[in-house]
């Protein structure tokens, strides 16, 4: 056949690809055995998995002690986990020493919070504005009253004219309202708070307070006003240059020195403030990176339409910048969540602290308790962090699909 002139007289049919390209075999070829190096890595890792995973499963399931009244059974069954210990201590691990009769208050606060967070994070949820008001304004007050108990207002300090005329009746009314509630909600001192409840509370407050603070610091650092800029830079650089533990110690020991004794912040509040202020500095840098990556044209486009500084930031710059840095922000939140374990150092019993305390119980002491406790704690932190990162991946994917960028 001569190549110079060619006219096709029968169409070439579409054939299915050879079996080596599709199906499980094709996948394995492409992903596991594409070269000598990758084949070797596949074999080594498969051997490692075969060697490690079955004993791990055996340890966690059929060799484990699932129920026992004390540590005796666990001390004999040493090649399995002692889940009986977790089952026995679960209340302490969840609530710390929060009185058992009042656990419903923690549960109610948690359920209300979970409901509101679900409302705000769920994509298609209606009336998000109402949800935000409930979450950011109503929830902190309700949560505080529920967890801490009805506050004692005492008699109104009638030291100014305006106060005695206008606010005193209001004060008295609120005080009477809380007095009436006190039998149902007796005060629970923060010293007995603990467990998962405290870990989640510290992270939640840290996240919710640090994000707006971080955004303001990021805007401050990019401000044209020298004083605002200098203050923001100084704050961010100092906080970033100091270990978290130092911030916690300072919040714990120095904060009370700045305010009169009567108004000294609660010992639970101090690490909360410290955590939020610390996280804000890191978030600020994250947000600043997002703001800087926006093209100058976005700011000019907004300016040309007559949008002022705050509207440009709120409507044009921040929505784009925050979307760009979602991975970084979630990374920070995950770090923050794990860093809450450090509050144990200033005397708070977070989940890890509660686990440590529970493991000291001599009734349960045995060789498997430490491993069981720490593996369980690790799983808890892993599950929460994985959930956060999965949600963030979902958000990124949705935004990428919507905007086709």
């Amino acid at each position, binding site marked *: 056949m001569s190549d110079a002139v060619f006219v096709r007289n029968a169409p070439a049919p579409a054939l299915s690809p050879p079996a080596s390209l599709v199906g499980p075999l094709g996948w394995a070829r492409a992903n596991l055995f594409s070269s000598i190096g990758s084949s070797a890595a596949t074999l080594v890792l498969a051997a490692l998995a075969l060697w490690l995973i079955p004993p791990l499963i055996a340890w966690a399931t059929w060799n484990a002690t699932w129920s026992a009244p004390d540590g005796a059974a666990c001390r004999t069954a040493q090649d399995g986990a002692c889940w009986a210990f977790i089952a026995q201590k679960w209340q302490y691990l969840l609530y710390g020493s929060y009185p058992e009769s009042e656990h419903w208050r923690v549960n109610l606060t948690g359920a209300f919070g979970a409901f509101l967070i679900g409302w705000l994070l769920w994509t298609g949820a209606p009336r998000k504005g109402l949800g935000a008001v409930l979450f950011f304004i109503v929830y902190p007050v309700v949560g505080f009253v529920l967890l801490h108990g009805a506050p004692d207002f005492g008699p109104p300090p009638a030291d100014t004219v305006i106060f005695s005329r206008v606010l005193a009746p209001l004060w008295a009314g609120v005080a009477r309202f809380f007095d009436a509630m006190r039998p149902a909600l007796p005060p629970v001192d923060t010293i007995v708070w603990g467990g998962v409840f405290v870990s989640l509370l510290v992270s939640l407050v840290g996240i919710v307070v640090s994000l707006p603070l971080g955004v303001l610091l990021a805007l401050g650092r990019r401000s044209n006003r020298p004083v605002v800029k200098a203050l923001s830079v100084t704050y961010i650089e100092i906080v970033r240059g100091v270990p978290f533990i130092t911030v916690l110690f300072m919040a714990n020991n120095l904060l009370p020195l700045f305010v009169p004794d009567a108004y000294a912040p609660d010992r639970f509040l101090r690490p909360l403030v410290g955590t939020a202020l610390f996280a804000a500095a890191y978030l600020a840098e994250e947000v600043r990176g997002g703001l800087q990556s926006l093209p100058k*044209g976005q700011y000019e486009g907004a*300016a*040309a339409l007559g949008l002022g500084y705050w509207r440009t930031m709120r409507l044009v710059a921040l929505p784009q910048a925050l979307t760009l840095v979602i991975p970084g922000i979630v990374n920070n939140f995950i770090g923050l969540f794990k860093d809450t374990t450090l509050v144990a150092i200033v005397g708070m019993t977070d989940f890890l602290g509660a686990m440590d305390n529970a493991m000291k119980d001599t009734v349960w002491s045995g060789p498997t308790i430490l491993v069981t406790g720490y593996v369980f704690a690790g799983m808890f932190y892993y599950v929460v962090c994985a959930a956060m990162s999965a949600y963030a991946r979902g958000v990124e994917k949705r935004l990428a699909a919507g905007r*086709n960028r």
Partner: protein
Amino acid sequence: MSQSVGKKAGPAVEFVGVNKWYGRFHALRDINMSVARGERIVVCGPSGSGKSTLIRCVNKLEDHQQGAIRVDGVELTESPRSVEAIRRDVGMVFQNFNLFPHLTVLENCTLAPIWVRKKPKAEAEAKAMELLARVRIPEQASKYPGQLSGGQQQRVAIARALCMEPSIMLFDEPTSALDPEMVREVLDTMVELARSGMTMMVVTHEMGFAREIADRVVFMDAGEIVEVNSPAPFFDAPRHERTKMFLSQILR
């Protein structure tokens, strides 16, 4: 150039002895010019000649250091309030569109009317749809800018600026970032706008557009205005040596 059209008397834009520096670089030199209401000005010149800088001074995206610029008789000062007032009345279209990628086409068009002009949402949306129809892309209203072609994006940008109901429109090289086959649709939109009587200052290399639409062509080089004339004599009988050289380089 002192005829009074419309509600206010006097020129729409007036430059009096304007000088501008970028650091030590003298970017605009002794600019004196007046743009009448309803007048269409095309500014051309080689790159770096200061033509973009000139129109960016009109809505104060750039500051000038000497002289006075008056827009609708109001002098541009440092006061943020006067700057925002001017910007409400002066629309601008950029080379790179500068649409907001996180908002739909319709939201791009209604953002400023709702937040700056305080229009009710429904009214702003009705106006936006009317203008999107005028630039012939109403069917794209619910898409995001990233899903449109360059020409469509630039037409959205024109509609977005018009939604603020400006009395003056600035165009900063509106077709320079477009693929050749999309230049036509944007120019057609601008021609239609020009015929409606809008005051326009257009920086462009589209000499055909200038010849068809401009009342006057301004030629700039090295930060100064070199020649100003009506399009016919400007293109057919340029007087200054630099104008002749520029035209011989771009026209074949």
